[in-house]
């Protein structure tokens, strides 16, 4: 079995194994997994509106997954997507609410840029610490997630002007005006008033750009080279330090953009968060499932969006929707232990080949 086949088969097997495990858990607790999964898919894809919601969910996931993938290709573990996305969301939202009269043609690019800049800044900190001092980016990004989380609460409580907050609360802002919203009439009317918005288009553009960056540009090559062997790259004249910082900047910018798309497309305002944003860790899951490749991320992003959008539908069968997150986590677990799948794959083929040979022998 060649490695390309394996590359495609491993995630498929992992997904199936995750669904089977979820089904087993449901059976154990007395639920019917067939009904559960049926309702999941119906509520994710059963109507124009639900398809719109599912596609809408894909946008931020693709962006945070790309963020993880860029860092991963440079040999770095960016676990800070939640914080970077949050930084992008809150700063761009603050800007949009503070200057509500900027015309739409200017507003949309401005909030995108602001979100990307602040996301990039949050990626820059772990990047430069790793490049110059060798500090583990795993720890710094995890710590930054919490720092940004608490700081965002401080920002909305103590730094935001009172007139942009909703009345009688300091926990959420007013909704953005129509000229800042990523929602467009034609996209929502196409999908029966769903929250589908230009965020999906932005994410797809980012996906194409990153595919080109990886395959056609010097930066992409340098990132991959540093990821494969930093010492050899230094020897070949690539500055590993500069590349590490660059890849974390790009990663942060992508996650920040993910936060903007989530904020301006889905949420329409900023709400004080009590825990890290889900899109961060889900983005990591999408990237791992998609093997860090742009095409893989697209499909994995769609699958995760289906799971996420469809999960509440399982309540129709009284099944707690958290089972879907258990399925998600176990898919990643099976991806992580792909060694065992890879070991078993050729064996399965050999057994089949042996059986076929036997059958042929019997016929003859």
């Amino acid at each position, binding site marked *: 079995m060649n490695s390309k086949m394996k590359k495609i088969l491993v995630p498929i097997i992992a997904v199936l194994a995750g669904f089977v495990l979820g089904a087993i858990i449901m059976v154990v607790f007395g639920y019917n997994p067939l009904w559960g999964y049926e309702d999941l898919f119906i509520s994710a894809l059963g109507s124009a509106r639900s398809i719109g919601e599912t596609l809408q969910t894909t946008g931020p996931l693709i962006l945070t997954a790309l963020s993880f993938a860029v860092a991963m290709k440079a040999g770095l573990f960016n676990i800070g997507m939640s914080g970077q996305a949050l930084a992008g969301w809150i700063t761009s939202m603050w800007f949009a609410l503070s200057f509500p009269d900027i015309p739409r043609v200017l507003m949309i690019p401005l909030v995108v840029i602001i979100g990307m800049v602040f996301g990039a800044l949050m990626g820059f900190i772990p990047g430069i*610490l790793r490049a110059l001092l060798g500090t583990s980016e795993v720890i710094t990004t995890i*710590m930054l997630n*919490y*720092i940004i989380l*608490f700081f965002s609460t401080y920002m909305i409580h103590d730094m935001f002007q009172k007139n942009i907050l909703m009345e009688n609360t300091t926990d959420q802002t007013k909704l953005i005006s129509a000229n800042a919203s990523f929602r467009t009439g034609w996209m929502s009317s196409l999908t029966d008033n769903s929250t589908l918005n230009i965020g999906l288009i932005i994410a797809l553009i980012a996906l194409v750009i990153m595919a080109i960056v990886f395959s056609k540009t010097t930066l992409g090559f340098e990132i991959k080279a540093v990821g494969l062997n930093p010492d050899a790259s230094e020897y070949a004249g690539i500055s590993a330090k500069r590349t590490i910082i660059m890849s974390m900047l790009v990663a942060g910018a992508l996650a920040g953009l993910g936060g903007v798309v989530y904020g301006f497309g889905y949420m329409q305002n900023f709400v004080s968060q009590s825990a890290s944003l889900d899109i961060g860790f889900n983005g990591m899951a999408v990237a791992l499932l998609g093997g860090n490749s742009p095409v893989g991320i697209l499909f994995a992003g769609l699958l995760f969006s289906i799971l996420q959008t469809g999960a509440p539908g399982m309540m129709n069968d009284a099944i707690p929707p958290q089972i879907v997150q*258990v399925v998600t986590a176990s898919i990643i*677990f099976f991806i*992580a232990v792909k060694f065992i799948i890879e070991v078993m794959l050729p064996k399965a083929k050999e057994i089949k080949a042996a059986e076929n040979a036997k059958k042929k022998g019997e016929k003859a």
Partner: protein
Amino acid sequence: MNLVNTLQIIVANMLIYSTPFIFTSIGGVFSERGGIVNVGLEGIMTMGAFSSVVFNLTTASIFGSLTPWISILFGALIGAVFASLHAVATVNFRADHIVSGTVLNLMAPALGVFLLQVLYNQGQININEQIGYWDFPLLSKIPIIGQIFFSQTSLPGFLAIVVAFIAWYVLFKTRFGLRLRSVGENPQAADTLGINVYAYRWAGVLLSGVLGGIGGAIYAQAISGNFAVSTIVGQGFISLAAMIFGKWNPIGAMLASLLFGLSTSLAVVGGQIPGIKEIPSAFLQMAPYVFTIVVLALFLGKAVAPKADGVNYIKSK
């Protein structure tokens, strides 16, 4: 409020909030000294908290006031069971340690809330039997010092400090500790000497499960008094930070945990304390995480972790 009272509140709360960090960070030390990076401490704590709460509710009528203590032991057991997922993935199946640890973190809250829905049909549940404040016998009678350090304080906190010293002894003075460390520093060499690398790495991860489970259980039994998706939010990551801050040493981890416990408790009770009142609680909450980055960047660099930490050992034929 007089000074002694103020100090008493600060010390007691520091100890209470440190306790889960101390147990969990020492668990992290055992895992990483054996060479397995464990970013899944957060998930392990969540399962410890969840299982201890269920156990507490189920058996409160049987064990009475002893219930929280037995619940903590049950939390330790479930913590170990949950950590074995990480062990089998990283030790036997060559999984990336960070990915596997993240799976624990993703899995635990979902599983906890799912089971809560199945068992009680609700997303949050409170316990009735909790661990409360405690007076140290005799020592609490000492004037001033007794009041500051030994009255209205936390028994699990004192136990945690004792456990830190025991863990230090086990790690640095016993044969088990020496072998565990050798497996984390140079598994090839250890293997050559006939040490079962896989078994010791399993032991390290299981110990992190036991101690992380205790940490999470204590958080539920002595601090939050409930389980919900928001019960364990970041305590595991603070423990991870305390472990690194403490240079992978149980005593160091304990001291770092006390520091982190202090800033966490100030964020909670700071409103009662003059001088602290003026600092927004968000900054006190942020402090442990900022400390960790600064200390890691300025003083530790990359050279402190066990050499083979995070490296899968593949036995050659």
